[in-house]
């Protein structure tokens, strides 16, 4: 047992537990000073250290022959052939977006892009899975509107297209929106660089924006003399970061040019924990140490304290490790792109991260670089399923005010109001953009722009309702949905990234949800042969001690092997056969976890319909191949809102209706059994197609014909397509189109 610190209030105010303090004492074999404490506190925060989730994340499959870089680096990287690699990552910016929606979302986009070009890749796509409180809640509308403007404002200006995403409104996110952002980039495989510092004597150059007092957050307690007196200054400290897409754009171009010219041996973006994180991670990944001169950091404000400089989360900065002889060249490129470049560090062979007041000045902090992350605590937090799980699962989710026509109309929502604010076409790759199932991009060679004749498909998906009812199966269904979305554009999955948005990890039920979700994700990823190559965990998503519904969000990336013609649209053509593919709902079909049950029936529990993962694998593979062979006139997967919503979206897309036999009760119309698609096949191909399906062991039943001006379920439910379209198009513009109020 080590001696107690002089003043235990210091580390506690910084968010470090007494045990964590002990650990630091043991690692340093002395008491840490305030600067060192500040550095440990940011690096050992949940956000940076994954201390609650690490033990579970180990159960995810991460390997495949095409995986070049798995979890742990800034982004996952896969080899997609032709000497091209693809980098992909997803991250959350939930809490910042709740306070300042525009900047929260904007800096979220900026941050994830840096993760991509850190790997040497040019970012070519962003996706934004978004979740907000109810659309009739004014504050949720204000947050939604600000977030969407922020993604638009930053993404468009920085010059990376936003090619898809999600928008979900639910009570569970009231007060705690989820703003996740995914980015994907391409690079010549040989340019892949990792965030590591090596070569004693090499220089660490800080590139980009000046360092201000942004996002100093918890550490700012160090600014006030005594920790018990509340200091006005602290409140004034701007913990809100403002994004500058123009700075990011110049930084991106400059970094890619530095990489192209081979001037960089390691590079790391500055995100959470700022310079502390970037210097310690690069040093310890490279098995080296680093001397950092705080006075060399270009600062936005005067009189910044060393702990402020070391922990600031100012945006649009990167740390590059270069050889001393290349400095002039690096400075020349930086100047051309009008970005600042300051030599703030030197690589040493000691393994120590030393913070100095001038390279020859006083030592302000000295700690083994690797202890900041490798020795971060790892918690095995208590896990317990909810005590009333049995009762919850016994509930009947099919009760409620059944009115199939109006129920269907109320479940429709067109996300076009959102994505029409995003440039989704830049780089001339977008074959299938937002508004469909998966997004499909041309894959071109990043060296010379040559087409490869292949396509990259992306989809992001989450479903808090399924995951609330059953986090394990729900998460497996979420992965399946993402795979099914890309199957609709002819692609098969290569890899998965995930963002685990959960409540307070100190609640055993939340840890149970997390553990179950990880297991469900692992099962599905194994089944689809799509390893998890990266992700992010966002915990403490709660309002007034109420946790959000578990919301694992996945991004799936897949490949279309021969992209010569666009895949079929989702729209119904006239006069063809409408088929239901996939798992045939059997007797235990249930509305549990469906949008109908939550939004209309008012029951949030029950037992999910049986989900046959292997069947979903076969079906989506079959659909992807059928799309590639151009056998389908239209295709759409069945997800939120069930068969009825899927059919309505197909009708709205083309203006043609369909006559569906049976399926005219609310359970058949709105259940969300996983692994199903609606496909439209021309009469001349029908017999062959059905035989083919049978050969692939994919259930396919003809449920109706397309055409006409209405969508019919059975003989009684008849809805003019124009009425569907009005309901679909008006909801978002009416709620958000006029502006919103901050309440």
């Amino acid at each position, binding site marked *: 047992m080590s001696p107690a610190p002089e003043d235990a209030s210091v580390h506690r105010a910084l968010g470090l537990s007494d045990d964590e303090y002990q650990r630091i004492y043991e690692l340093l074999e002395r008491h840490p000073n305030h600067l060192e404490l500040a550095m440990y506190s940011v690096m050992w925060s949940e956000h940076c250290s994954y201390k609650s989730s690490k033990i579970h994340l180990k159960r995810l499959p991460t390997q495949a022959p095409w995986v070049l870089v798995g979890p742990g680096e800034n982004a996952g990287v896969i080899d997609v052939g032709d000497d091209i690699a693809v980098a992909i990552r997803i991250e959350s910016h939930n809490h910042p977006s709740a306070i300042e929606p525009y900047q929260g979302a904007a800096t979220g986009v900026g941050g994830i892009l840096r993760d991509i070009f850190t790997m040497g890749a040019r970012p070519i796509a962003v996706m934004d899975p978004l979740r907000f409180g109810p659309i009739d809640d004014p504050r949720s509308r204000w947050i939604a509107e600000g977030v969407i403007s922020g993604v638009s404002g930053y993404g468009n200006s920085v010059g990376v297209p936003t090619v898809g995403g999600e928008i979900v409104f639910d009570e569970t996110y009231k007060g705690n929106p989820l703003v996740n952002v995914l980015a994907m980039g391409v690079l010549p495989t040989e340019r892949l660089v990792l965030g590591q510092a090596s070569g004693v004597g090499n220089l660490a150059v800080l590139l980009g924006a000046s360092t201000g007092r942004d996002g100093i957050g918890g550490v700012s307690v160090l600014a006030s003399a005594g920790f018990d007196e509340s200091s006005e200054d602290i409140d004034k400290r701007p913990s809100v970061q403002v994004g500058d897409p123009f700075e990011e754009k110049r930084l991106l171009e400059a970094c890619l040019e530095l990489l192209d010219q081979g001037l960089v041996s390691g590079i790391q973006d500055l995100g959470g924990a700022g310079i502390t994180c970037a210097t310690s991670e690069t040093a310890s990944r490279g098995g080296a140490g680093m001397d950092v001169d705080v006075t060399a950091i270009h600062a936005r404000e005067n009189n910044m304290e060393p702990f402020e400089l070391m922990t600031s989360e100012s945006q649009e900065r990167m740390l590059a490790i270069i050889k001393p002889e290349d400095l002039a060249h690096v400075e020349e490129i930086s100047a051309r792109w009008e970005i600042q470049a300051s030599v703030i560090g030197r690589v040493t062979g000691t393994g120590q991260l030393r913070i100095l007041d001038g390279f020859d000045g006083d030592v302000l902090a000295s700690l083994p670089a690797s202890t900041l992350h490798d020795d971060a605590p790892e918690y095995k937090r208590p896990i317990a399923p909810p005590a009333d799980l049995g009762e919850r699962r016994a509930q009947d989710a099919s009760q409620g005010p059944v009115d199939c026509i109006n129920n269907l109309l109320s479940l429709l929502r067109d996300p076009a109001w959102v994505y029409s*604010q995003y440039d989704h076409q830049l780089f*001339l790759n977008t074959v299938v953009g937002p508004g469909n199932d998966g997004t499909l991009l041309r894959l071109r060679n990043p060296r010379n722009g040559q087409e490869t004749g292949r396509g990259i498909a992306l989809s992001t998906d989450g479903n808090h309702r399924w995951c609330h009812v059953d986090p394990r199966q729900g998460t497996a269904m979420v992965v399946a949905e993402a795979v099914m979305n890309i199957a609709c554009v002819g692609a098969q999955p290569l890899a998965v990234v995930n963002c685990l948005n959960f409540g307070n990890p100190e609640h055993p039920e939340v840890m149970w949800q997390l553990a179950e979700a990880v297991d469900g994700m692992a099962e599905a990823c194994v089944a689809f042969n799509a390893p998890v190559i990266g992700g992010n965990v966002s915990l403490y998503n709660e309002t007034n001690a109420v946790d959000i519904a578990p919301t694992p969000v996945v991004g799936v990336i897949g490949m279309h092997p021969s992209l010569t013609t666009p895949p079929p649209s989702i729209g119904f053509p006239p006069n063809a056969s409408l088929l239901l593919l996939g798992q045939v709902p059997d007797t235990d079909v249930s509305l549990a976890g469906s949008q109908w049950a939550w939004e209309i029936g008012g029951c949030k529990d029950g037992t999910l319909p049986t989900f046959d993962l292997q069947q979903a694998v076969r079906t989506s593979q079959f659909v992807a191949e059928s799309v590639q062979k151009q056998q389908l006139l239209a295709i759409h997967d069945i997800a939120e809102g069930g068969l009825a919503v899927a059919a309505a979206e197909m009708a709205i897309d083309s203006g043609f209706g369909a006559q569906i036999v049976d399926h005219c009760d609310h359970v058949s119309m709105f259940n969300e059994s996983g692994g199903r698609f609606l496909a439209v096949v021309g009469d001349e191909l029908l017999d062959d197609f059905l035989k083919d399906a049978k050969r692939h062991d994919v259930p396919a039943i003809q449920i109706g014909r397309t055409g006409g001006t209405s969508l019919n379920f059975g003989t009684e439910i008849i809805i003019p397509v124009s009425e569907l379209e009005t309901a679909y198009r008006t909801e978002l513009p009416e709620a958000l189109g006029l502006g919103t109020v901050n309440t």
Partner: protein
Amino acid sequence: MSQRIGVVRFPGTNCEFDTIDAIRALDGEAEVLWHGQSDLKNVDAIVIPGGFAHGDYLRCGAIAKFSPVMDSITSFAEDGGPVLGICNGFQVLTEVGLLPGALQKNAGMKFLCSMQQIEFASTSNVLGQQASVGDRLMIPINHFEGNYVCAPEVLTEMEAENRIVFRYTDNPNGSLADIAGICNQAGNVVGMMPHPERATSRLLGSTDGIGLLRSLLAA
């Protein structure tokens, strides 16, 4: 025959390589012209592509207009050289005064990215060589500031001189007189908000921009 096209790159420009790809796909040659250099490298025509030159800070084009390359382009245009400004490029051309008027924020105060139908209102300019008045094209738009305004007498004059090049058939942004593109008196300088380079491939949904770029290449 303008075979070599200079494509201007300001910090913040983002459509330069798309524009170059589209030109090369039509067998044209393309060169990047860096904003800080006044040398136009003997190109035969110039495109100022879309993006956010200097972040569009202050106003779109406000900082870009001071670039050395813009001085050279102004002389080039005054000598009759073909110049096309697309989106942000159109905004820059109005800022430097090669084209009249200004582009304000969209009437709906939202960024708009969508496929839009436009109609040729005049063909006596560098883009209209292979077209007829009334031809309708599907070309994507992608802007926040595309709402064209000018003084009433300027509009009257442009109409009298046949200088409205394109009009929207369904005005998306509140543009005066549905204007999507205009030209100078001589017809060698054209500015348009829609992006022809985004309409050059069947895989991407439209090929209606090809004729426009061909016309520029032939100017």
